[in-house]
């Protein structure tokens, strides 16, 4: 049984990672083909660093992802707490349903509705779309990240229940102190995973940015998509490789660290 499940894990992760490995392989290609490997070279890494356009797009993507993850985490965590405390069942389910709309709705519909909305807003407040372009993008990303944050925090809050915050109130915390000193540390895993999820979603998003994006703010997925006029060059593969390797290394490091922590805990426990 154990061998079987290990084999299954290896099989699925293998299939999942073969395209990623292919991608990494072609980032080292000596020609600009992304389908036939002609030889090893670091050319595309050099090209990547030479292209200012790519870096602006990468910077934009990161700014957008960090900000929208932060904002949606703050609003979403507060919202989860608020929803948890709601007494009225009707309100609760109403808020939950509305929250889920951006997740249930196809991206393309969300993107389109957002674009139409912001064009209308820009017209009403008499500003050029361009000057609210970044804000529009940020708001759109935050909006579609929100449900992921709430859905990752809410179960933690439900699980935690009232007892801890009541104990904190009892010991003299104001409700806000109780939330920050006691509840937040205990729901932190949920908050963090919500934030990572939001960051990932925002970074990977193409469809919504494609609709909402403005002239002066191009993200990486938009840049890559626009390359399809000609062809997507391997320097984008090099960039993807760098991103994925960085994340992977961070992941392994944090895993080693938390593994050590766990070991220490075990020893301490005995």
């Amino acid at each position: 049984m154990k061998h079987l499940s290990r084999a299954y894990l290896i099989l699925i992760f293998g299939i999942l990672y073969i395209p990623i490995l292919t991608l990494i392989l072609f980032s080292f290609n000596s020609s600009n083909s992304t389908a036939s490997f002609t030889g090893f070279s670091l050319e595309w890494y050099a090209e990547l660093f030479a292209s200012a356009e790519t870096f602006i797009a990468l910077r934009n993507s990161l700014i957008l992802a960090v900000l929208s993850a932060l904002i949606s985490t703050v609003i979403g965590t507060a919202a989860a707490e608020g929803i948890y405390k709601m007494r009225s069942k009707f309100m609760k389910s109403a808020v939950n349903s509305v929250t889920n709309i951006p997740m249930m709705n196809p991206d393309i519909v969300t993107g389109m509705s957002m674009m139409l909305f912001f064009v209308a807003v820009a017209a009403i407040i008499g500003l050029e779309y361009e000057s609210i372009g970044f804000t529009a993008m940020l708001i759109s990303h935050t909006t579609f990240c929100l449900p992921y944050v709430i859905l990752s925090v809410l179960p933690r809050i439900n699980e935690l229940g009232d007892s801890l915050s009541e104990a904190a109130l009892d010991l003299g915390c104001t409700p806000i102190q109780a939330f920050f000193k006691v509840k937040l540390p205990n729901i932190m895993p949920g908050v963090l995973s919500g934030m990572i999820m939001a960051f990932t979603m925002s970074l990977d998003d193409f469809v919504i940015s494609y609709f909402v994006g403005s002239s002066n703010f191009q993200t990486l997925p938009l840049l890559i998509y626009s390359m399809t006029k000609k062809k997507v060059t391997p320097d984008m593969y090099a960039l993807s490789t760098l991103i994925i390797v960085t994340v992977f290394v961070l992941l392994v490091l944090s895993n080693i660290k938390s593994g050590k922590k766990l070991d220490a805990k075990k020893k301490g426990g005995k």
Partner: protein
Amino acid sequence: MKKRHSFMRSIAAAPHIFWSVLFIILPLLIVLYYAFTDASGAFSFENILSLTEYAPIFALSLELSIIATAICLVIGYPLAYIIAKAKPERQKLYIMLLMLPMWTNLLIRTYSIMAILDDGGILNTLLGTTMHIVGTKGAVIFGMVYDFLPYMVLPIYTCVSKIDKNMWEAASDLGCSPVKVMTKVILPLSMSGIISGVTMVLVPSISTFYISQKLGGGTFELIGDTIERQFVTGALNVGAAISLVMMILILLSLSVMNKFTDSDEGGIIV
């Protein structure tokens, strides 16, 4: 006085409610407006009525995504189960590994898949065969499964990992064979995870518009492609009408599906 009190309890949700109304409900109302007006802004049912011609495209999109979702479930459930049963420090690693491919760009991932599966691609070269995969519906389904598998695994994993370990023992103690334990106890208990997993795979795969173009070889069109084309050719009103109908259909079918589960918590991820 009591009213004020119960409102104050959930004040934390206020920013989110405000946000939702402004950036979810309002944009959708604008889509509604566009769907029921013609290009000149006059009220018309024409857009909605013209949708019948898109029925076959919609049906095909729906069918492909149903198959993709079913495959995701069949592959994803055991995966989620195995991960949930692994050592805690391993679990975190597996989940992150599952999400890691999402950090690379969707387009580039899709190109990599094409580089592998194409007629003259890596797979055929290695095996010395001439399988025709890219350009078939099977390839589109593969693409959907590849891209959306994490969305199936995460909610199920969350659900399964919460099931008490004693449940297995209790069930087998009461005379269940391992198969019966699975079908009578574990599966029903993970139903809410399955439902949110199914939702989170089905919805994006219905509306996906890049995978079908690239992996499907462009020999057929899915509803996402159609909306996108309407959008770029300036037929906003028809695009809005398709979006609206699609959204309503999806939300309806989801609410029907939710009837099958008793849980009122809705979807849970991570």
